[in-house]
């Protein structure tokens, strides 16, 4: 038996009633008497106990809600001991009772795991998941973006034709039909869409001085298409959003995520790994087509000298252009390339330079 003074609210009025509360340890009941009702018995398994710092609140029933407030220190201590001994403390309360230090440790470990998972695990899973998405979908979002985008651009149809003929002379290991478009614009840029549409601005073409530079650019962009880099990045971004939303238990965020992504195809910057892959494989394509691999280096140098103001998408990723140029140089050294002057490529290139 544990006894103590407490305050009882009967759920019918807010009048406080002083009671002597008894914990019947044998029957596991709370027992008290009020002048109006007489003896009241509450089975302990049916009560809800709320621990506050120096206070215990007990609720019983839902209609009406009856409540007891205990603030006697000794009584609280004995009552808590009794609850612990008889396994009446919920597992949730046990987790809460671990204390702030343990909670901080849990939080830090948990946060660490999440950050590591987000950085290392999530991209891998998301990229693997791309296999599950049919290639038709790449085509669909690529061409719908292309149609919207191109509406606001001025196409140079003569150069577009020449560029397509240029690309047709190259063996690009492509699985999708490639379609090149030359857009009249000062912008020094080019980008590839997941459906095989590749857009090159005259600003970039004007910068080039040799056809192997163009071959390098085409090789680079085609690798983005062949390897489904856009789709992989979309998956990564979407997965990232979903992940963050799930962690923060933001139900609303989960519902609104993916649609935002498709609109950003053009400004989508590829990861370091993807750019490196595009450089390397693009270089292989150049070698395969007997063009001078140094063209890619020259191309990057020209873009670099030009891009002080805004960084074009093809150089937008994290590795510094210098690093990329260096690693391409190393690759060229380790590869045996055979350069054969290709007259028709050169002529087509000159047409593009007009």
């Amino acid at each position: 038996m544990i006894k103590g003074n407490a305050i009882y609210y009967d759920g019918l009025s807010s009048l406080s009633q002083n009671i002597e509360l008894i914990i019947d340890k044998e029957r596991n009941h709370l027992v008290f008497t009020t002048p109006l009702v007489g003896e009241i018995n509450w089975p302990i398994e049916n009560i809800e106990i709320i621990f506050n710092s120096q206070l215990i609140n007990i609720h019983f029933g839902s209609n009406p809600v009856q409540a007891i407030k205990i603030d006697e220190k000794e009584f609280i201590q004995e009552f808590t001991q009794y609850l612990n001994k008889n396994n009446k403390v919920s597992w949730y309360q046990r987790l809460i009772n671990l204390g702030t230090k343990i909670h901080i440790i849990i939080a830090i470990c948990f946060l660490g795991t999440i950050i590591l998972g987000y950085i290392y695990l999530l991209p891998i899973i998301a990229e693997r998941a791309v296999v599950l998405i049919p290639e038709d979908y790449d085509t669909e979002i690529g061409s719908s973006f292309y149609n919207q985008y191109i509406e606001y651009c001025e196409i140079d149809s003569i150069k577009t034709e020449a560029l397509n003929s240029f690309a047709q002379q190259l063996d690009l290991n492509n699985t999708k039909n490639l379609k090149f478009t030359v857009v009249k614009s000062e912008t020094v840029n080019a980008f590839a869409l997941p459906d095989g549409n590749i857009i090159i601005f005259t600003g970039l073409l004007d910068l080039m001085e040799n056809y192997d530079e163009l071959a390098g650019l085409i090789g680079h962009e085609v690798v983005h298409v062949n390897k489904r880099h856009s789709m992989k990045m979309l998956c990564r971004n979407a997965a990232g959003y979903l992940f963050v939303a799930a962690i923060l238990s933001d139900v609303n965020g989960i519902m609104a995520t993916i649609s935002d992504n498709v609109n950003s195809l053009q400004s989508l910057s590829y990861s370091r790994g993807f750019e490196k892959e595009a450089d390397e494989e693009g270089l292989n394509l150049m070698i395969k087509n007997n063009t001078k691999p140094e063209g890619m280096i020259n191309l990057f140098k020209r873009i670099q000298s030009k891009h002080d103001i805004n960084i074009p998408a093809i150089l937008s990723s994290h590795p510094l252009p210098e690093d990329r140029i260096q690693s391409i140089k190393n690759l060229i050294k380790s590869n045996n390339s055979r350069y054969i002057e290709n007259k028709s490529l050169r002529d087509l290139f000159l047409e593009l330079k007009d």
Partner: protein
Amino acid sequence: MELLTENEKKYKLEFLGKGSEFFGIIIVNWLLTVLSFGFYYPWAKAKKLKFLYGATALNNDRFAFHGTGKEMFVGFIKAIIIIAIIYAVFFLFLFLKMPLVGILILYAGIIAIVPLAIHGSYRYRMSRTSWRGIRFGYRGNRNEFILNFYKWFFFTIITLGIYGAWLSINSRRYIMSNIKMGDVAFNYEADGSDYFWMNFKNYFLSIFTLGIYTFWWYKELFAFYVDNLSLEKGEEKITLRSRATGGDFFVLIIVNLLIVIFTLGLGYAWTVTRTMNFFAEKIEITGNIDFDAINQTEEDYTDATGEDIGDFLNLDMAM
């Protein structure tokens, strides 16, 4: 006034929750929610509300939230089904190559359920709240509120959003004035035009002062919510008044910001308890309602669907 002071009672509103306690709850909830792939969410929410209500005390007695995870889980499932149906219809029309109809239905569907969610949420939340065993209740009429809400929403659209101030205050007035705490009735008296001009003035002042005036905007917003609220029981009355100044808000917000930044977000719990403490401290309550003689009048209501739809739509429905 002289007559009033004779029966005037003392009221004390406090928030007694500690940041460390709330931190424990957030961390445990977070862990369980992620480990259960989100299914623990309703239970986590119940625990959180139980803490926040239980840490708020009026005249030394704590409020209590009686909602359970199970109730909210049922509501959660119903909410998912309702929202899934709206999205299913949307995708059906996309599939039928009628995207415009689909989008219209999507928006109309979401707007249609907003007042339902608000109504349901208040009925549930209030019915599950008690103080000294006296249950709160929301007595608004669903159809009346929904029709009014649609009407106000329609005005908001045709006035290009200007009527939004009235939509917001009219809804608030309707809801708050239908809240009961036993036989004590809440009463909210505010006018959309006051709200509109208050925001209008503060918007420009904030721009001209490069945002510094925002803290005084908060002060006025808080006062607008608090000062217009009163409680009534027969002839007895309680009025609320905000004591917060712009400077108070400045300190509150800047310190909260610093806590979040320097703890990399882990200090979030402390910012919540600080804010709750601030609100409780800055509300002055005066009047003559006898809080020892409130009678139970409100009924039980356990459907949490509205509450959960509100979560999905990110509706903020705190009192």
